């Protein structure tokens, strides 16, 4: 937690840059593969020093967008600047200014960790005298310096991902792209990856652009863009997005749920349902509502639970579905959920 605050505090220390030098500038970016429109014209800017998250279900167009920004896929329309360079006409300049960590590993398992990093340094033309010290720094950051002589094939999934992050940083990129950096990792490793990412922000003058479909991880981003079906639906800070939902979730435990629901309807005009074994409903400013609830409900309440809206609620309110349902791709399911939730 304290790491998060210190990371946030460091935003202000980012070197002052002209305001027009955003790390990533995207205008009307499109990509279609034949009939399939993977990305349908998106616009956004990523400021320098920001942790910017792309959130959305699989197939939303996140990976295609990131591939275009990394010069791996040619856009079919629109433009994008990364670190001030055009992704189509200045491909090499873009490649030199970015670090990449893909969903799937791109390490050579038959080389040692150190050999993998040295190879990267050579390919990216890192000055020879800088390779040694820089390699040590990035490997120490991810806690793999002691394992530098081991073959990568002997590493666990989490270690490989950490090594890839270290490698992505080796040439001091201006923008680090992380495509689903924690997918397929256990919760403990996921949180350690995140502590490296947040630490990075405080240590290096770097912009981090990542995609994820884990809601809890999106909370760590300075700003997030929610993407669905090739479009950006909304883009803001996690706090602002949650505030835009407007309602807190209140859950109460009672002796007679049916009577409590009826009383909520008649006394406050609130529609409530039973969820997770408790009477559940949404109200603005839930903590101010609770005293009124006790005074005016007329039913005994055994316990009460007030929760701020989560990013799950945000995603739900903008797309009419939960991210998990969106991934299952069942459209009828999506409509049904939307109807049930009355959104």
């Amino acid at each position, binding site marked *: 937690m304290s790491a998060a605050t210190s990371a946030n505090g460091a935003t202000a220390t980012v070197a002052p840059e002209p305001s027009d030098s955003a790390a990533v500038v995207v205008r009307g970016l499109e990509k279609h593969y034949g009939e399939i429109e993977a990305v349908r014209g998106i616009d956004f800017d990523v400021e320098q020093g920001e942790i910017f998250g792309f959130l959305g279900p699989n197939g939303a167009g996140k990976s295609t967008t990131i591939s275009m920004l990394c010069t791996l896929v040619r856009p079919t329309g629109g433009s994008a600047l990364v670190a001030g360079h055009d992704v189509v006409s200045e491909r090499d300049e873009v490649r030199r200014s970015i670090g990449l960590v893909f969903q799937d590993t*791109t390490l050579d398992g038959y080389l040692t960790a150190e050999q993998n990093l040295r190879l990267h340094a*050579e390919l990216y033309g890192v000055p020879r005298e800088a390779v040694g010290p*820089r390699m040590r720094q990035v490997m120490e950051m991810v806690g793999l310096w002691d394992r530098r002589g081991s073959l990568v094939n002997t590493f666990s999934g989490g270690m490989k991902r950490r090594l890839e992050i270290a490698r992505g940083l080796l040439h001091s990129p201006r923008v680090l792209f992380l495509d689903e950096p924690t997918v397929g990792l256990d919760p403990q490793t996921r949180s350690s990856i995140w502590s490296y990412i947040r630490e990075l922000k405080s240590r290096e003058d770097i912009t981090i652009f990542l995609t994820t479909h884990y809601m809890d991880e999106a909370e760590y981003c300075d700003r997030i863009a929610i993407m669905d079906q090739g479009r950006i639906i909304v883009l803001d800070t996690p706090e602002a997005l949650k505030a835009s939902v407007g309602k807190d979730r209140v859950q109460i435990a009672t002796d007679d749920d049916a009577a409590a629901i009826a009383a909520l309807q008649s006394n406050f005009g609130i529609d409530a349902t039973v969820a997770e074994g408790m009477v559940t409903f949404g109200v603005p400013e839930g903590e101010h509502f609770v005293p009124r609830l006790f005074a005016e409900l007329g039913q005994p309440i055994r316990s009460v639970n007030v929760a701020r809206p989560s990013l799950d609620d945000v995603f739900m309110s903008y797309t009419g579905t939960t991210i998990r349902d969106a991934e299952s791709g069942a459209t009828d399911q999506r409509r049904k959920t939307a109807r049930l939730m009355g959104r």
Partner: protein
Amino acid sequence: MAGTASAPVQAPEAANGSGPHQLAAVRVPTRTRGSEVRAIKVVWKRELIRFSRDRLRILTSLMQPFLFLFVLGTGLSKLASAGTHGVNLKTFVYPGVLCMAVMFTAMFSAASLVWDREFGFLREMMVAPVRRSSLVLGKCLGGATVAGFQGVIVLCLAGLVNVPYAPSLIIEVFAIQLLLAFTITAFGVMIAARVSQMQSFMALMQMVMMPMFFLSGALFPVAGLPRWLELLNRIDPLTYAVDPIRRIVFSHLDISAVARATLDPGVTWWGWHIPSVLEAAVVAVLGLIMLGIAIVQFSRAE
């Protein structure tokens, strides 16, 4: 390059200190010829590291040459003794086996590109800010070096098949082996650019390599063949590697003129004896053409 290489690098000791510390940034200079050379070198070096790790591969790729040389060569020598004019059959097939030793290793080197794609490492190379031609060239040179190493092992066996260890022989034969290894790797890389499945790649390579070996004259003299076989033999690129090696080897043997004329007749084009230099040039030009095609294919790939 040296001018831009001025990154303020923090002393490594400082990195041991407790608490958060600023990571020293390195500045990556813009692309120069030097950075391309570094890329070629590192791709080449990776090939060597991986080869040295893979002892099994070193052994298995020697298997086939050894079978041909010692089993086929020994087993058939009784049958063949009437036609070889006193020359050991093993000595006769030795030049072909020298070629075979490099062919298979070069092919496996190229095949690793298919693995690289499957295991994702190819992507790490493809997104690097270097020319694709540097990557392909590094790969082909790496394959040639590794295969050349296998070639040397078989070259060391010369004494066992009555071929003298003359320095000029070793140098000349090795040079042709390297050339052949480069061409075969370039051929493999060209195929690997298109074929993404290991099974298909291996099947395709076998389908090409075995006929190439059998048609090349590695196992028979290239004169007096039936028309169809002569035609196929002259089309086969391997013919132009086996023939000069055989000429070099036979020039160091003390044998009768009849034996020489029968066993080492030399490749002819419409009756004209092709000089060894031209034969080597055929192999080299083919290699360069395939290298060019491979570079174009990899440059186009996203």
